[in-house]
């Protein structure tokens, strides 16, 4: 875990309101252990926003760490106004990783909803023969091609591209077998639906969840999610709640409770 002032090597809008930023972060790149991990970003040094913003790592190549982010509020807006050559301060790598997607006996189904696509693309890059489903509200938010022949399924809520509907809709068009293993990241309703789906179909799933983070490093106890059956994790002070920043963000499907 490091704090680095990193130089931005590129920062561009890749779809409507969706940006990709690359930074030269040698220490964090070296310490990175795999898809699912995130960094905690501080776009500037004023204290109007005292708290960093967590962003999943979308890829690591050499010293270059990449994120994909959506402009949501003030800090992501500020992020989008940074030019290459400018520096920002990041803390990472943080959190745990998706596992087993690289096992021979696993048929991975990668599902990314909204900005949840960042860690999913990260898995996709190293994954053999995955099926990938990426959901968005509308065509303009997609920057890939709907390509079912190559097992890339895009969905849009408004039907303007790919499959009309959400990721659940797309999964119906896919053959699911006992080796199927869902790896998903996205908004809570999507994860909740996938949790039910996976339990119903009796297939495994790993879900990367979001929560409001005060620190990202286990100090504030703010980022909790309720466990499903009180498993104790070594970093937690307690049994009912898990710390997403340390124990997560990736959980086995039935580990956590939504809503």
């Amino acid at each position: 875990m490091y704090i680095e002032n990193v130089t931005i090597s590129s920062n561009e809008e890749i779809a409507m309101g969706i940006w990709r930023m690359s930074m030269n972060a040698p220490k964090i790149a070296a310490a990175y252990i795999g898809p699912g991990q995130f960094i905690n970003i501080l776009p500037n040094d004023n204290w109007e926003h005292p708290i960093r913003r967590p962003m999943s790592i979308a890829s690591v190549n050499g010293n270059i760490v990449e994120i994909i982010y959506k402009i949501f509020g003030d800090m992501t807006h500020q992020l989008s106004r940074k030019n290459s050559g400018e520096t920002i301060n990041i803390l990472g790598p943080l959190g745990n990783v998706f596992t087993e997607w690289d096992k021979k006996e696993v048929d991975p189904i990668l599902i990314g909803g909204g900005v949840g696509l960042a860690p999913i693309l990260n898995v996709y890059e190293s994954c053999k023969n995955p099926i990938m489903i990426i959901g968005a509200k509308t065509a303009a938010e997609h920057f890939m091609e709907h390509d079912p022949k190559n097992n890339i399924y895009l969905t849009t809520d408004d039907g303007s591209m790919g499959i009309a509907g959400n990721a659940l809709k797309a999964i119906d068009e896919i053959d699911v077998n006992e080796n199927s293993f869902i790896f998903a990241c996205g908004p809570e309703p999507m994860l909740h639906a996938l949790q039910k789906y996976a339990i119903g179909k009796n297939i495994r799933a790993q879900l990367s969840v979001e929560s409001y983070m005060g620190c990202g490093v286990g100090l504030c106890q703010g980022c909790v999610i309720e466990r499903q059956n009180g498993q104790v994790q070594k970093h937690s002070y307690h049994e009912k709640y898990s710390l997403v920043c340390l124990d997560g963000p990736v959980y086995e499907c039935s580990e956590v409770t939504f809503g």
Partner: protein
Amino acid sequence: MADLSVKIGDMIFKNPIFVASGTFGYGTENPELVDISKLGAIVTKSITLNPREGNPPPRIVETSSGMINSIGLANIGVEKYISDMLPIYEEMDTPIIMNIAGSSMTEYMDVMKKVEAVSSNIVGYEINISCPNVKEGGMEFGVDCEMTEKLTRELRKLTDRLLIMKLSPNVTDIAGIATSSENGGADAVSAINTVVGMSINHTSHFSDIHTTFGGLSGPAIKPVGLACVHKVYRAVNIPIIGIGGIVNSADVIEYFLAGSCSVQVGTANFRNPGITEIILNDLNNYLDEKGIDSISSLIGSVMTHD
């Protein structure tokens, strides 16, 4: 190099930069980003008699130059603190101040008795009578002079270690509560705990915090912390540990000028777990540049216009 050591009760701390309760866990986390041996002291997360799971999420939200939290005193309970933490502290050379919370006089006393009954190197207790986020947070003590004095007196009987009462800003007269702490036999007071606050999402119309009300911390409350410290400074003769919105060495100086004899850094740790080391370096430079021999010489020396 200036003398950064400060004295509270009979204890001398190598420097006045402590980390605040609930913002640095049990001092056993996150050793990668901060050299904790450089800290003046670590105040550990509030401990209660029984373990507490804490409040449901959402527990935190950012506000302008601040944040609200309602963690709800999630903690491992005193038994586990004794079995799991105290042995680790034996290996550390950073002074540990144990923060205790409770919902009744007996609960505070029981926790302290249990810790006093075993051997440990903790240097003192900070008594949280000011957590705004749970019914059991001791606020009924923190707002009442008589109860504060009584609680202090009872705890004083139980220990020879440092006894520090942690004061709430959410009262009409913080100086009165401080005086009661002094009268009850406290070695020091710390001020302030968080300020009661609320935040609402204007789009969803939901409260941003599960418990509706939470505790505001961070730079936004620095003026409140300074005012509380200075009021208390004018009222009592025991040392004051200043807390609230400290993020850099200038803030530390201001807290000293207002009357603090040491400070605690809270929310700023979340932004940078290594921030205390930066503050400490800058503080050294500030004092050297100004030719100030000892930081203690600044205590309470703000120049007022009247």
